[in-house]
């Protein structure tokens, strides 16, 4: 008699592991977010106080707004770099196409803390960027806003996530028939019209994938703002860290984290839906 392979046999341990250590922790986090803070009060039972604290405190709102600004700016800059780069890789690079792809993949596998540190060394008051600008005579005293600022956080984040922005867009462009561009040009479209009416709509699914892979994690960045953000580059991820590990305010930390999770779910669903919509349209 032959032994049949059943899905249960294959999936029991992987799915069990995820349920125990991925789903259950999320459930615990949800529970903690509705509990009174054990460090500050002895009340038991459930409450909405943590969510009220997160959503109404003006300081938190300020951090949330800064996070939105930083994440959106970093995403926009990455698109500005990624769309031309993906186009070059997909249609122009020829024998350099794969080396460029390797360079992107490799960049993502290098240690992120090391990368942040390298930027910090470059952007500091005595860093190479200030040195170079002074030597060239563009500025006479070091620029202060290069490091420990929003500028620093946006710069570092734009480079650390570039791999995941470029590759989905590149993959989407790779699927485009290059003949379409010739057709558009033959029909009298200029390069801008070709870009807007042909390239961009066909590359849109890749753009949505990039949003899921990059824009969402940007909101919960923690290492980058902590190392190069200073006070003005403070983000929600740093806030979650200080609520949980420094203040011991687990309820509020859990509530904030849960809101981040819900927001990331909503953005994912929206981006996924938009990418599908576009596929049907075409």
């Amino acid at each position: 008699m032959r032994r049949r392979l059943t899905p249960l046999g294959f999936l029991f341990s992987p799915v069990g592991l995820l349920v125990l250590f991925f789903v259950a922790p999320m459930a615990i986090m949800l529970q903690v977010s509705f509990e009174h803070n054990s460090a500050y009060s002895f009340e038991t039972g459930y409450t909405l106080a943590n969510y009220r604290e997160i959503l109404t405190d003006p300081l938190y709102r300020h951090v949330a707004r800064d996070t939105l600004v930083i994440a959106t700016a970093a995403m926009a800059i990455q698109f500005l770099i990624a769309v031309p780069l993906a186009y070059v890789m997909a249609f122009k690079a020829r024998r350099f196409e794969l080396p460029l792809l390797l360079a992107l993949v490799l960049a993502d596998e290098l240690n992120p803390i090391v990368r942040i540190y390298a930027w910090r060394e470059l952007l500091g008051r005595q860093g190479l960027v200030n040195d170079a600008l002074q030597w060239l005579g563009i500025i006479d005293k070091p620029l202060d806003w290069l490091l420990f600022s929003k500028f620093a956080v946006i710069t570092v984040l734009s480079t650390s996530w570039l791999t995941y922005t470029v590759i989905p867009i590149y993959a989407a462009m790779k699927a485009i028939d290059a003949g379409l561009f010739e057709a558009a040009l033959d029909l009298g479209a200029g390069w801008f019209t070709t870009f807007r009416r042909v390239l961009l709509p066909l590359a849109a699914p890749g753009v949505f994938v990039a949003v899921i892979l990059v824009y969402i994690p940007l909101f919960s960045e923690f290492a980058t703002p902590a190392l190069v953000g200073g006070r003005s580059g403070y983000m929600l991820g740093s806030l979650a860290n200080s609520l949980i590990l420094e203040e011991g305010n687990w309820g509020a930390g859990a509530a904030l984290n849960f809101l981040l999770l819900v927001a990331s779910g909503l953005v994912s669903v929206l981006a996924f839906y938009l990418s599908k919509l576009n596929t049907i349209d075409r």
Partner: protein
Amino acid sequence: MTVPAEPYPTATAAIGREAAAPRSVAPRSERVRRLVPVVLSVAIALFMLVLLYGPLLLLAVFSFNNSDILTLPLRGFTTRWYTQAFDDPSMREGLWNSIIVATIITPICLVLGTLTAYALTRMRFIMRGGVALLIGATLVVPWLVIGISALLFFNDNLPLWGRTDLSLRTIGLMHVVCTFPLVAAIVGARLARFDRTQEEAAVDLGATQMQMLRRVVLPHLVPALIASAIFAYMWSFNNFEISYFVGGDDYTFPVWAFSTLRHSQNLPVVNAISTVISAVQVVLVVIAWRVLRPSADDPDAGGLIPMGMP
């Protein structure tokens, strides 16, 4: 009306200014016109390379510089930062912990990931979409959220389970949770492409399911498995957020680097050790790349790159 001197006047007009210009100028302006996109392409590619690798290369150069701040001019060659780095006991502990965790979890991730990928690509069952969604979610949910929820989970006094002490073990456990879905994605992409008729033929010729798996499926998966192993190792080695939250008093290399950088201004020691680690990582990734041998027609190399992931 007379017949025009030129046989195809409209064609000439359509080609435009370059063609209409005097002959001696035309080739040159044509060359310039063709050169512009090439120059732009090269500029864009170089810009990316400088952005991604410039800072790290400078770090490497300055790790041999005989000065404790990273500033020009260079003050002569030294390797003392390297000796200092490896003499630092806390650095050694972090590095060693990272290596141990990554080495232990990589084979576990390979097994779990391959099982998942096989079930998802070869079997039909209820909840298949649900399982795929769960796997995808672990790859998309930010590590900070996973790390904090795990911290709360391990600290919660659970029924039957109790509290779990945070240590390297919890780090390793959570690394498995967030890394094996990557293996599932890489191996799954390979399986999705692999022709199923060979598997069916094996079964028709009397192979048992296990024989079919061992003799037909596994050999095809070898490249994907080697690449998965390298990438799983990297993910674990580089993971900062999860290790930071669930490590308790134990720490891995990224956590050590983070706290060292947070508390002091300039550390040429970190330059040195960063350079060593980056060099090793470059070698490993290039090996993975060679093994997968992507080509221009098939650039995602069996799921190496998250092209259609979510």
